[in-house]
């Protein structure tokens, strides 16, 4: 079994329901996110369009975070999920630096690394991840990539040619796909990050003794 995620960006309307469901389900502290929806505006007035991109851990087959973790706190479980053992994590932040998707953060409460686990605890109880349940338009599709009859496999087969992953050139082989994504959705360098449009960007969390600089 290899679990994977697919987001149909044609369907996503940026309601952030998945983001909130994830926060509640996993008790993600203030100022940190396992899953977030990024809004990017494209074009010049009046020809403008707003795009929404849910961003979470890609559960890469060749995960740099798993490779760099000195204590195997980040590890694969049998269903392909890259899970994290917060009791073992030493907080070196190697995984934060190694992840090419910026999907890992230091939990300000536990001072350990944390990230999306595809709600591994829910899956163990045969439930869907919280974000999948919360999505009102079923833009989040989750399932077994090795099962050709699963919803995600069928979706990938139907939308061949329009299925993408983030930063494929990094060789990480993500198990997280997007349908209908363009450069602006998937490449963080294709959009300008202006000041004043970020949530909680002024919050400070407890840092190691060295601080920020």
């Amino acid at each position, binding site marked *: 079994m290899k679990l994977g995620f697919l987001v149909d960006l044609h369907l996503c309307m940026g309601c952030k329901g998945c983001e909130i469901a994830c926060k509640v389900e996993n008790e993600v502290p203030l100022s940190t*996110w396992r899953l*977030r929806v*990024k*809004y*990017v*505006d*494209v*074009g*010049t007035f009046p020809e403008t369009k*707003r795009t929404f991109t849910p961003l979470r851990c890609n559960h890469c087959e060749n995960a*740099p975070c798993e*490779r*760099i*973790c*000195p*204590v*195997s706190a980040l590890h694969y479980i049998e269903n392909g999920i890259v899970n994290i053992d917060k009791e*073992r*994590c*030493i*907080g*070196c*932040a*190697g995984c*934060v*630096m*190694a*992840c*090419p*998707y*910026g*999907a890992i*953060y*230091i939990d300000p409460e536990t*001072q*350990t690394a944390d990230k999306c686990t595809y709600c591994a605890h829910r899956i163990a109880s045969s439930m869907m991840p919280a974000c999948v349940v919360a999505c009102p338009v079923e833009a989040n599709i989750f399932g077994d990539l090795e099962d050709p009859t699963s919803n995600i496999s069928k979706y990938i087969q139907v939308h061949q040619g329009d299925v993408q992953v*983030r*930063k494929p050139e*990094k060789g990480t082989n993500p198990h997280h796909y997007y349908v209908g994504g363009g*450069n*602006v959705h998937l*490449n*963080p*360098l*294709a*959009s*300008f*990050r*202006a000041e004043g*449009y*970020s*949530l909680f960007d*002024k919050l400070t969390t407890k*840092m*190691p*003794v*060295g*601080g*920020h*600089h």
Partner: protein
Amino acid sequence: MVHEAVAATHAVVTLDVGLPGIVWPWFVTMNMWAKSIGTGVIFMLFYLQKRHGDDPAVATLRFPVAALSIVFITIFLLFTLADLHQPFRMWHIFFYPHWTSPITIGAIMASVFMGLISGLAFFSLIKKDDAAYDKLLLWTMILAIPVTLYTAALLSMCTARELWQMPTETVQMMLAALLAGSATIILYDAVTGSKMKEESIRSMAIILGLAAATSFIIYMSEFIFGPMKAEEVTVILEAVKGHGEYATMFWVGQVFAYIVPMALVLLSIVNRSNGLLKLAALSAVVGLWVVKHVWLIIPQLLPMS
């Protein structure tokens, strides 16, 4: 090119979360800087013994070099520990080791290295056994090589922070150790009354000058040609170009670590002036910290998502 892409798409982020910013702070700079000195002096003593073994002052360097190495490797280890968000779990590295991680390999090698330099101190200060010291120095010098280099592996495993490339960082780590090691020996000799023979000091000066020149050439190559290779490098180097956030600091580092030492080493050799050489050594040690800091920080400014 990024600006073209952004201009082409007219795309702007209008709602997102704040990005984490600097994750590895100046403590990691201290780590790399102190390690360069701690292993560099070992390389220098080994070289001096082989090349200038007839210099009586070289024989007196055994304990001072061991002591200097212990001091700076201790600084390196303490700052590494302090940078952890869970420092009291450091022992997990030894009890749950993950062998693909340079952090694991580095921690174990650094611990063994600490044992070896402590052994050097023991043989020189307590046992006063020069033969045993010199035998142990060979193994210490050999281990100093991977201890110097492992941080390059760690940086290169940071996917998408493309400024940190494995072959380049490996060479830069070794050059930093040679630069810092030779500069520290020059400064030590100056502080203790300039007892080393002219040829020995000249060797240190040449190593310092060549290490500075080679490092400078590599940094300038990356500065000029790096943006032609990867989009990420283009964006990262914006921080040190023009009015970039770290442009001043970058050039201060390059001047103090490389340009001033290169010039002063040359002048000191031509004029046989030890005074200029001391200045070169001091400038290199100070400048190296700045250079390492800028190169550590700027890839962390890159938006990853």
